[in-house]
């Protein structure tokens, strides 16, 4: 099962390495990892996407908790939540293709954010599934480059991960 784990971490040097090291050391998967400081500069927030059965996920959350710099964490997948990922795709776009790519981008509510005589760079925001669907939809187009941020997540409603 895919899980999205959000972690509040002391914003100290070495703390992130500890989280990443834990996953490598204990053989856990990381599908994606995003991290940045929060509104409180002493805290950073990570969103980790991982996979495993219930027992593995339980170990992951417990082992993360044990890290001294982990302040709080939540498995967002336990409750209603929102996840977003941003992707930029650079595609070959000349002649007829230009119109076709633009149509496709519109359907996905993607934006063309950079243009050259032979290329488009498109930005898409959504769930990881949506980003994958967009790549699928571009199957007749030559993709030059893809960059994805990885998932950020937050719970719906009043539930929040804060101090």
């Amino acid at each position: 099962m895919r899980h999205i784990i959000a972690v509040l971490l002391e914003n100290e040097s070495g703390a992130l390495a500890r989280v990443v090291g834990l996953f490598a050391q204990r053989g856990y998967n990381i599908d994606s990892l995003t991290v940045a400081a929060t509104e409180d500069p002493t805290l950073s927030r990570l969103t980790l996407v991982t996979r495993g059965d219930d027992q593995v996920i339980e170990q992951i959350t417990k082992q993360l908790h044990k890290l001294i710099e982990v302040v709080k964490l939540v498995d967002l997948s336990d409750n209603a939540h929102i996840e977003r990922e941003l992707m930029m795709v650079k595609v070959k776009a000349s002649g007829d293709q230009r119109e076709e790519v633009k149509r496709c981008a519109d359907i996905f509510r993607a934006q063309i954010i950079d243009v050259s005589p032979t290329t488009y760079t498109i930005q898409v925001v959504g769930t990881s599934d949506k980003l994958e669907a967009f790549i699928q939809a571009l199957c007749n187009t030559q993709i030059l480059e893809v960059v994805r941020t990885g998932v950020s997540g937050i719970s719906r409603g009043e539930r929040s991960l804060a101090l």
Partner: protein
Amino acid sequence: MSQQNQPEMLSGGAMLVRALHDEGVEYVYGYPGGAVLHIYDALFQQNDVKHVLVRHEQAATHMADAYARASGKAGVVLVTSGPGATNAVTGIATAYMDSIPMVVICGQVMSHLIGDDAFQETDMMGISRPIVKHNMSVRNPAEIPMMVKKAFYIAQSGRPGPVVLDIPKDMTIPSQKFPYDYPKDIKLRSYNPNAKGHPGQIKKALQTLLAAKKPVLYSGGGVILGRASDELTELARRLNLPVTNTLMGLGAYPASDPQFIGMLGMHGSFEANQVMHNADVIFAVGARFDDRVTNATKKFCPNATIIHIDIDPASISKTINAHIPIVGLVKPVLQEMLSQLDKLQGKAEGKLDQVALANWWNQINQWREVHGGRYQQRAELLMPQAVIEAVHRHTKGDAYVTSDVGQHQMFAAQYYKFDKPNRWINSGGLGTMGFGLPAAMGVKLHYPDAEVVCVTGEGSIQMNIQELSTCKQYGLGVKIINLNNGYLGMVKQWQDMNYDSRYSSSYMDSLPDFVKLAEAYGHVGIRVTTPEELEPALERAFALKDRLVFLDIHIDPKEHVYPMQVPGGAMNEMFLSKTERT
């Protein structure tokens, strides 16, 4: 502000040493080098914190570790950057695996050189990360007192463990002084280790134990670390529980007590492994269902309801699912159980199932007859088990016994019947050969009047034999029992059992003359080659109170450790001798 209240101005190095003193540290074990010279100079200029100069940094870590195991307080190590720090790695990992509190201070190259592959630079933060409870690098000398406090707090609280403090040389420059103030205590918003255990869960656990027909108490190193053996013993007696201890937990319950059924696991007693396998309730206290205990997890104790007390939630349901988990320090949890039990006194719910328990004890006593720790006596050859029994007699069962790793370690665990906690000191989790001698030194230094025995093998002792020199310098009169079988015996045993006795590199060829070696270092050496020589040799060795005596005892080279669990089997599937299995 009056003159008196003005904080003293100290250099980073002096603050470090003062902070150690304020933390109650008496000894630091270490080895000097470029990156820690300022600190060594600060040590030289005071008399409160004493430094013990080892001959290899690994030994410093094991000394500190063993001191912690015996006393419960964190041991302190001081090493230089680069090779000094990397030499300490095995000892840090050893302490980590057994949850031993330790503070390791590593020098580092000057801050501005970090990352340049400077002379004797290694990324000790990176190297130690997977084998420490925490590590920290000093960025500002003024923070040294706070960081020392934090290091001790983290190392000693909750599930203890080693903490590495990485100190770049420019943090300790003698001419740069800062106001010194040692914090009384410290709080971290991200770390709150003092769980008392959920009362509801504790109640449920007690009810389950009271209703049990075939219960067993399985306790581990957590009870030793948590200083809870009195509570454990009382509870076991009041609930009439058979008690088994892990390798790390020996001594938590008196081995001479009739309710004690021996160690469990790979080389556990026949009865302990049978009791576990057939139990209806397993009460696990400060133990972690390690693979050397459970054997194949799929076949583990099929009928048992499992109650598990541990301070580390990650240890609960990691390998074996717990039905009644209790996260908390073992001592307060056991105290709460005892007080709940008091309240049930005289009430129907407080009654044990006496009939079922009598049947259970009957069964256990029958199992005791099956193997019972028997071993073959030989007229011409000394048996290792007999040596350990003799050492037990000569020390009245009251010695601190450290060991190395191998067959001798298992014989010591099985045959030195530990009646007190903190007396059995061995590397259980990492299985570090070379641990025994420095460990004995760490204990002897702090308990000079106690009998300290190192049970070792001719393989293991050579991994830190240079420490005989340190023993001479500090007058450490430990007794070394070298169970010399001329083999890497444990390796040989596996090769006998699984590789048709093809002894691939398990023979210790060209052994030194240990007696002469001991003498060369200024100690007493005694060789024992026949059974008759043993008693007088032990007599003489233990009479030489303040001397280090190296007893090189030649034993049966062919002996195996039994019982031994059948690999991949259930807990109760065991080899009982070279020719019998369950």
